[in-house]
């Protein structure tokens, strides 16, 4: 966090010299929906916009690219105001979700398109494009039309095409969403490498927390057009502040008032934690930390023991994820064997416990 703050301090407009990187306040009004997001990033930063569908991530990206006009706010890139600049005049490259490679052009000419528009001759543009394809390991596919490329290859051509204009801001809209699981793993690693080499600001939009955490230095979580949390991936994973993020990172999350080791939830029971805090806090614990019993466990302390009912069961990797309602709504993970032994079924009454050491409380 301090690292980010230091970077941001260097970006304050009007400070010494031209501020490098991105400094944006994006406001887009669309009738019932309003996007209002502040984004700053230093050159070399990779920022991920994470959020549920309809949160406004893609609108934010389109606003940065100039494909959607700003209703208010500002957009500065390396000290230059861009909010009134036409998209074709912005030093911005975009990798679209389904790549949008021009189907009538070869991979080479797709990549050469940008340099051509920048005024390079056909031969020069092609030479540059060949260099980019080489870097992406696609030299052998330079003459292929997009429909002959695999998903992973098309994605790399799309990245090469965006980079070939030498943008100061690279935007990636769900760059891995169109790939199947296996290709995705491979392409994600490659993209991570290319993003790490990229010297300007990169902003990517994703709804996949893993993509965000692997690819980005900083996450900005958007819900309903607003930023609900931002910070380093690890920090957000440990300290989720909304149900959406908690669900993404697989944590049970509650909000309450702390008094010493006890956190009293607004509606419901108290949770005992190891942290000693006071005031409004979040409490989080992983589903794996929950232990279920059919009968009230004897001998166990009454702390962090709740009477619940199974509302749903689903397979979650090699675990069974049980959704519980009752005193404390929570998700619990248990092995298939344990689930069978407990004869768990929707509607079954269970006791759930969590050790205080497995919980984590932090100020809200």
């Amino acid at each position, binding site marked *: 966090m301090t690292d980010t703050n230091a970077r941001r301090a260097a970006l304050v407009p009007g400070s010494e010299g031209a501020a490098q990187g991105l400094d944006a306040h994006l406001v887009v009004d669309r009738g019932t929906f309003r996007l209002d997001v502040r984004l700053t990033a230093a050159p070399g930063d990779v920022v991920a916009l994470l959020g549920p569908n309809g949160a406004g991530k893609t609108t934010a990206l389109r606003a940065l*690219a*100039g*494909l959607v006009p700003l209703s208010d706010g500002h957009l500065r890139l390396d000290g230059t105001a861009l909010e009134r600049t*036409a*998209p*074709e*005049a*912005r030093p*911005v*490259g*975009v990798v*679209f979700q389904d790549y*949008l490679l*021009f*189907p*009538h052009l070869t991979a080479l000419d797709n990549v050469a*398109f*940008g340099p051509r*528009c*920048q005024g390079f001759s056909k031969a020069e543009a092609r030479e540059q494009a060949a260099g980019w394809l080489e870097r992406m390991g696609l030299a052998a596919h330079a003459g292929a039309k997009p429909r002959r490329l695999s998903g992973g290859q098309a994605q790399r051509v799309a990245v090469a*095409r*965006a980079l070939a*204009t030498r943008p100061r801001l690279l935007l990636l809209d769900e760059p891995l969403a169109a790939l199947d699981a296996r290709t995705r793993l491979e392409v994600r690693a490659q993209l991570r490498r290319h993003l790490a080499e990229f010297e300007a600001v990169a902003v990517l939009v994703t709804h996949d927390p893993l993509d965000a955490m692997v690819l980005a230095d900083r996450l900005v979580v958007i819900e309903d057009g607003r930023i609900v949390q931002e910070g380093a991936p690890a920090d957000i994973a440990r300290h989720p502040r909304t149900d959406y993020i908690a669900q993404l990172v697989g944590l049970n999350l509650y909000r309450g008032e702390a008094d010493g080791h006890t956190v009293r939830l607004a509606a419901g029971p108290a949770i005992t934690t190891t942290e000693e805090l006071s005031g409004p806090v979040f409490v989080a614990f992983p589903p794996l930390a929950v232990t279920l019993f059919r009968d009230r466990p004897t001998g166990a302390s009454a702390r962090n023991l709740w009477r619940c009912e199974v509302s749903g069961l689903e397979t979650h990797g090699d675990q069974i994820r049980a959704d519980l309602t009752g005193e404390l709504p929570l998700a619990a993970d248990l092995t298939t064997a344990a689930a069978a032994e407990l004869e768990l079924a929707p509607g079954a009454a269970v006791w759930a416990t969590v050790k205080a050491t497995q919980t984590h409380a932090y100020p809200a």
Partner: protein
Amino acid sequence: MTPLDKSGAAAGPRPGRPRRRPVRAGRRGVPLPLLVPGLVALAFLLLPLLALLVRAPWATLPDQLTSSEVWAALRLSLLSATAATAVSLVLGVPLAWLLARTNFPGRGLVRALVTLPLVLPPVVGGVALLLALGRNGVVGQLLDSWFGITLPFTTTAVVIAEAFVAMPFLVISVEGTLRAADPRFEEAATTLGASRFTAFRRVTLPLIAPGIAAGSVLAWARALGEFGATITFAGNFPGRTQTMPLAVYLALQNDPDAAIALSLVLLAVSITVLAALRDRWLTGS
């Protein structure tokens, strides 16, 4: 899923195990109330063409066709139809783009007006052209007094009349293709530094080329067969404004054999065009 998979597997080639079931199912599925009218329609469409072939004066055909009047009419027809198509392309494609890609008040009305010549009787179109571009027409009198240009009853008038009736075909066809084409390709081009026009020229135009080709063929065929507007606006002067359809009609009055011969030529031209473009767009749609 299962029934789909089954039929898919049955339709696919399976070496060593021929399956006839889909074929039989296809035949069994044609109800008589559809089959009979369908065959009648087919006969109705083909019979006149057959009659043309049956009654053709094959013996005297070479003489009929080598007359200079026939060649003049054919040449004029091909040239004017091609010119009308060119005019339609140059003006119609941008109009189609405006209709498909921009939003302006009254766009629906403009679109309806564009299609009006499709349903307007061509003779009415010819009268309207006379009133607009004729020597005393709204614009025509200005052309006459300012530039000394008189359009009616010239070859240019033939091209104008044909373009007037043919362009809507092209506009509608291209607009439909544009609407079906993903506008985000233009956005992608824009983010790569292309102006909107460059994006249109280098991305959209190649993408909608099949639609433009289809529209051009429709427009060209419509222009080739144009009769009403042409005879009204351009008259019927051999060598200058007498196109093939006009020549056919005139010949039918005093020399039916010549009319049949001319019709055969037009039929041959039409079939040639269809055959030449079959692979390009007929099978594609």
